[in-house]
């Protein structure tokens, strides 16, 4: 019994003397509470929507006012025509559009019932469901109130149309998210571990004391990981197509090109992480802790970024997977071309160049 106590006592001493682990053990729960309690929520406020009113009568005006005063919606007044709607949806400028048909007031006056079109971007089916629920509630509210006021039963029925993902399947949302997450994690982890392994073994010393240029060391560490990641990418795409019935609607070439860019960015991050890590274990921990959390939270596939407090939104701009996620959704799900993703592609290019240059600079040609 006493031996057991002695041993337990020693284990406590070990834990409390390891400051890094302590930081993680206590810091992590606190950080998570703050994050999940305050910053992240699945409520969606201020969704950008468009309203096209072909009827233009007092009822539509009233309803539109009600929608405008709700803090769930943010009406983009410039989006009106059918082409504008289509373009806005493609670019992701609006999440939902409400169209009042021309015969709206006619139908309402004569039958007491009229339909309006509600078109929602269902590439994120959870968000689509949430927003359409909001609008449905609002319309029902309006119905009940108007009935009470006018004494006449009023029934405005929203007719739902879900774009890009009519069956509201989860796959179209989580597959791009998983792609971003997996590629990011695997690339950073594999690269950082490969470099640190060389350090741990001691072979890095010999490599450095040779005419072999450090940049060649870096390229040779990145090359196999790049190839493996591309293979991984193809496996994910094939599996999605075969088992989840999710096909690449747009240009495969564009998708592969942007994926390669993203892989390069992740590899460069792995390179950066390897510079200060001394053991493979530390490298793996840094990759997991340092990259997994931000990637999961700030990519945009689990929690909507627009609803995060501003500082976190700005932070998410620094996370490469956030941009990649947008590109994948637009190319894979919406079938869009380069013109729709050039901005994000440029950002990714910039990130990978910057990270690669920084890591190359900081790559230690000496041991200390």
């Amino acid at each position, binding site marked *: 019994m006493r*031996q057991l106590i002695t041993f337990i*006592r020693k284990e406590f*001493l*070990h834990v409390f003397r390891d400051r890094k682990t302590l930081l993680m053990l206590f810091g992590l729960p606190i950080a998570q509470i703050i994050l999940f309690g305050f910053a992240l929520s699945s409520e969606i406020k201020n969704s950008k929507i468009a309203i096209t009113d072909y009827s233009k009568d007092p009822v539509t005006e009233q309803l539109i006012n009600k929608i405008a005063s709700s803090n769930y919606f943010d009406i983009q007044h410039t989006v009106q025509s059918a082409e504008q709607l289509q373009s806005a949806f493609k670019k992701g400028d609006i999440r939902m559009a409400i169209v009042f048909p021309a015969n709206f007031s006619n139908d309402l006056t004569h039958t007491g019932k009229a339909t309006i079109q509600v078109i929602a971007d269902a590439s994120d089916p959870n968000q689509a469901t949430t927003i359409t629920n909001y609008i449905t509630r609002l319309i029902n509210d309006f119905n009940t109130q108007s009935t009470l006021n006018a004494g006449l039963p009023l029934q405005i029925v929203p007719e739902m149309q879900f774009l890009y993902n009519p069956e509201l399947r989860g796959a179209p949302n989580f597959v791009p998210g998983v792609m971003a997450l997996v590629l990011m994690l695997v690339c950073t982890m594999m690269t950082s571990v490969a470099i640190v392994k060389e350090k741990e073994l001691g072979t890095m010393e010999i490599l450095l004391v040779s005419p072999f240029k450090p940049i060649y060391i870096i390229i040779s560490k990145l090359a196999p990981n790049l190839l493996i990641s591309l293979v991984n990418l193809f496996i994910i795409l094939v599996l999605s197509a075969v088992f989840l019935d999710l096909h690449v609607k747009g240009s495969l070439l564009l998708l592969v090109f942007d994926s390669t860019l993203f892989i390069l960015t992740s590899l460069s991050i792995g390179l950066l992480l390897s510079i200060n890590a001394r053991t493979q274990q530390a490298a793996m921990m840094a990759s997991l802790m340092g990259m997994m959390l931000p990637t999961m939270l700030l990519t945009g596939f689990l929690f909507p970024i627009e609803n995060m407090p501003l500082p976190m939104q700005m932070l998410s701009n620094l996370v490469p997977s956030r941009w990649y996620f947008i590109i994948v959704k637009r190319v894979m799900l919406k079938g869009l071309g380069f013109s729709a993703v050039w901005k994000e592609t440029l950002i990714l290019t910039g990130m990978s160049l910057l990270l690669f240059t920084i890591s190359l600079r900081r790559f230690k040609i000496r041991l200390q």
Partner: protein
Amino acid sequence: MSSTTAPPVIVTDKLTKRFGQFVACNELTFQVSKGEIFGFLGANGAGKTTAMRMLCGLLKPSSGKAAIAGFDVYTQTEKIKRSIGYMSQKFSLYDDLTVSENIRFYAGIYGMSIPQIKSKTAQLLQELELEKEAKTLVSDLPLGWKQKLSFSVSIVHEPDIVFLDEPTGGVDPVTRRQFWDLIYHAADRGVTIFVTTHYMDEAEYCNRVSIMVDGVIAALDSPTNLKQQFGLDNMEDVFYQLARNAKRKAD
């Protein structure tokens, strides 16, 4: 020094260990008396480590008999572990604990009572002249002091035998000799010392030396007798003579 009237603390009879077809230790037969300093030498791959593990009760032999402090290595390994101490270069003290915490820990693990631990800690600190360093982390101690502390900790519970696995590797010559002073002290108190080493001059400090080659004991006698037997004047030449024709040079 060695006592021939007391029963031997280590007795082996055709002790053998096989790993599949490979015979690591082949019919080892020898005895070690109480208070003896016994040098257990052999090249890497000769079977030394395997033999030591069997004697410590960590590895079950394939055949043959052995008794440590009177306990059978097949059936009484727990009693063996309680009667021996062990120190090696690789296994030693906890770097992130202080000197006294390490002593207290190991004393506790060996089942010593609290008052015993207290007095033993004070005694050790005084003997090693580490009283001022009692609260220093072991990682901050110079290597030589670590080795000496390591040894003292391994015999904190006053075992019958202590197994030392290359305890003086890489240590400076003065500290090495101080270490051997500690070994002599312990032997005088009746602790049997079973030590392996790569330093051939240390082989001379032992009462008797055995040299393992290719899994068998190729020679076992006092250093003086061995030198006479081979007609050489130092243990290094004796060892080289026996080891150079070894077939096994594996790790």
